[in-house]
């Protein structure tokens, strides 16, 4: 419990640091939010007035702490560009990104678990070797390129979906699902490959250990040893990977959203960065940071549950 609290505190500090760094980065890069809003057609008086209104003339730390206090009170601010509450903007787009990440995650677990176990069991066999090669290729193809390939093959040639024909989940939920299926495949494929490789390697590694020999000598058959003993231990590194992958999928969908023209969190983030829309960027980055840190935290806790040997509380 003490361990969990400690981790939790570290998590908060991490997020705080990230929010500060983002604010700092925005202060350092060239570009001015007021100017970005007004464009070339700007008169100096109007620019000065807008800078004052946005509070851009105040010292950096003062602005940061102002932002931080209102953020902690649950007030995420108003977007400079759209003049809409940031919280509303995120809430309306979050489901798109989250559903995509969850579907990709489900695809990954559903495919990589059986395939990983199969290849471990039949390692060195013909199918195993083919899968190893395919895995290698999948892993080395960046997911945005996978996205382009998928759009071309399934969208343009096979016409299984209309590239760019995204419909909102609010308008047509099934249409939405059938569209994001392909982007999800693009996100999931490299992760499946990684996950299969890790699970296979982990199983084979475990199978060489002494307790496996003991298990066999007690009269268990291969399947019993595999599912009853080996897999339990082999899953530990895989679960770490999955935890990080879930976070990675949420973040990685930013790129895929661009490729498939999906208006999710990623799209809002990118346009807001180029528009110097600090309140929106801050809120989204803090959200992403939270997701990454929180999944890691959860993975740590799950460790202890699967493997009592990892007594996470013992160190203190």
């Amino acid at each position, binding site marked *: 419990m003490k361990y969990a609290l400690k981790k939790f505190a570290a998590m908060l500090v991490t997020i705080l640091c990230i929010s500060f760094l983002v604010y700092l980065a925005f202060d350092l*890069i*060239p*570009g*001015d939010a007021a*100017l*970005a*809003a*007004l*464009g*070339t*057609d*700007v*008169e*100096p*008086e*109007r*620019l000065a*007035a807008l800078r004052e209104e946005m509070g851009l003339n105040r010292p950096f730390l003062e602005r940061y702490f102002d932002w931080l206090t209102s953020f902690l009170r649950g007030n995420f601010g108003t977007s400079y*560009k*759209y*003049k*809409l509450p940031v919280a509303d*903007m995120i809430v*309306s*787009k979050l489901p798109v990104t989250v559903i995509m990440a969850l579907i990709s995650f489900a695809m990954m677990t559903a495919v990589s678990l059986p395939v990983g176990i199969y290849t471990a069991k039949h390692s*060195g066999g013909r199918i195993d*070797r*083919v899968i*190893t*090669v*395919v895995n*290698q*290729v999948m892993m080395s193809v960046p997911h945005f390129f996978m996205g382009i390939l998928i*759009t*071309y093959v399934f*969208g*343009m040639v096979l016409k299984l979906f*209309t*590239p*760019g*024909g*995204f419909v*909102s989940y*609010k308008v047509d939920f099934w249409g939405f699902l059938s569209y994001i299926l392909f982007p999800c495949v693009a996100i999931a494929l490299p992760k499946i490959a990684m996950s299969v490789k890790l699970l296979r390697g982990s199983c084979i590694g475990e199978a060489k250990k002494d307790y496996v020999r003991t298990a066999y000598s007690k009269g268990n058959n291969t399947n019993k040893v595999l599912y009853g003993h080996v897999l339990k231990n082999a899953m530990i590194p895989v679960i770490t990977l999955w935890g990080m992958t879930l976070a990675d999928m949420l973040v990685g969908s930013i790129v895929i959203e*661009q*490729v498939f*023209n999906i*208006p999710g969190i990623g*799209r*809002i983030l*990118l*346009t807001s960065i*180029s*528009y*110097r829309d600090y309140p929106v960027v801050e809120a989204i980055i803090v959200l992403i940071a939270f997701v990454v840190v929180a999944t890691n935290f959860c993975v740590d806790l799950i460790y202890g549950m699967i493997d009592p040997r990892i007594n996470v509380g013992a160190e203190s």
Partner: protein
Amino acid sequence: MARRGKNVLFVSMLLTLTIALGGCAGDKEAKGSDQIAQSQTTAAAGTENSGTEKESAAQETEAVADSHITIGIPQDLDSLVPSLSQGAGTQEILFNIYEGLIKPDSDGNLVPAVASDYTMSEDGLTYTFTLRDGIQFHNGNPVTVADVKYSIDTCAGLNGGEPVISAFSNIESVETPDDKTVIITLKESSSSFLAILATVEAAVVPADVADLQNNPVGTGPYKFVSRSLQENVILERFDAYWGEPAHIKDITLKVIADADSIVMNLEGGAVDLVARVSTAQAAELSDSFEVIEGTMNLVQAVYLNNQVAPFDNEKVRQALCYAVNKQEILDFVSDGKGTPVGSSMFPAFGKYYIEELNDTYSTDIEKAKALLAEAGYADGFSFTMKVPSNYQQHIDTAQVVAEQLKQIGVTANIELIEWETWLSDVYQGRDFEATLVGVDASTLTAGAMLSRFRSDAHNNFINYDNADFDAAYANALAAEAASDDEKATQYYKECETILADTAANVYIQDMCELVAVRKGFGGYTFYPLYIQDFSKLYLTD
């Protein structure tokens, strides 16, 4: 055994690679041959269609009740409140929802809109507008003179606060003597007042709708239905529109943030029309699309910081002008499409535009070298040319220019910067040697293109300082104040000639604008300003 395993691995790797690479090559080839076939068909289609289609379509459209078009737009709209809207990309769309007392037509003339008629007093200080009979807002309420007064007052800062349109700080008062008349009085006469009044920012909005941001209400041919951030904006025809009603009933404006997916969106059927596609994209389109050609109405040039050495030397600037071959740039970058220009004015301006200035510097490498030598740069020099990274056409042009300048020993290092950085560093901070961009006009007044080159202009980002120019510009303003349009035009032309003669910038072209339209739609109309008029679109079959 191990050996065999390795071989299998190697062979299968090789196989996948071959397939992957083969796929790529095949793709390219197919596209290449498509391109040629297409450019021929579009050329043919372009000439045949134009005349006959329009008439038959106008009759048919009445019958199509639930017509729909999806239009791709490169960025989401910012504010839906006209006076707060900022991007040109937003205002060109809002043009369909909102109208001012007057508005521009496709020839650039100002025509009555919310007002049915207007007169200007002889001294140019008082404008009297008559409200159009029976005109309604999208919410069904009649437009009143109080709404007009509220809208103009807001823009002029007379309701408290800074003027939203700075030129409107010139407004002395807005009066409504009766329920049909609005009188606007200016502090001093201004030739550009009407042009600014016709912009979307000065549109008439209802005084009693508090939340225009989420509930935009105007008087235009289309009314707002809904929006989803970064996804789409949905419009519907306004049936009680006072003027000629729009043809197509429903419009979905779809945000395509990634320029690379425009072709895919068109071909896949997700969108029917995209304005401003590049020549490369246009060439990729299949023959189910028609590509219409217009001009962008801007002046693309290598804008030179006239205060920074060596560009503070007129001879150096002229040398660059002699070294650059505009036609070659057009041929390379846009298949020869576009209109070369020789000063800060583009053809759509009509009477202000001087075509001959284009010939001020006909490409002459020897002369350029001689000028450089005279200026003391016989061995050439190198400079940095900043180019906004989001405009591919500017980048392409910059590369050709850099190549051309090599011939006279001048090295142009291209530095790509973000648009927001360009705004703050180059435009506002004037921290640059040279930059390649397009400068457009917010209104169709000569001042919109020329006023920035006065030595004391706040937006004189090239630091141009020429007493003759300042004098000619002052004369033009004086002539305008005296309502002598002919004389004013003459002085404005003098300004343009001075810019050309002193080689203020290396002027290149007014770029071509290509609009991709799915066959079956017609009526796309070009405006000399940044405007997309959806009300003129119609179905052809």
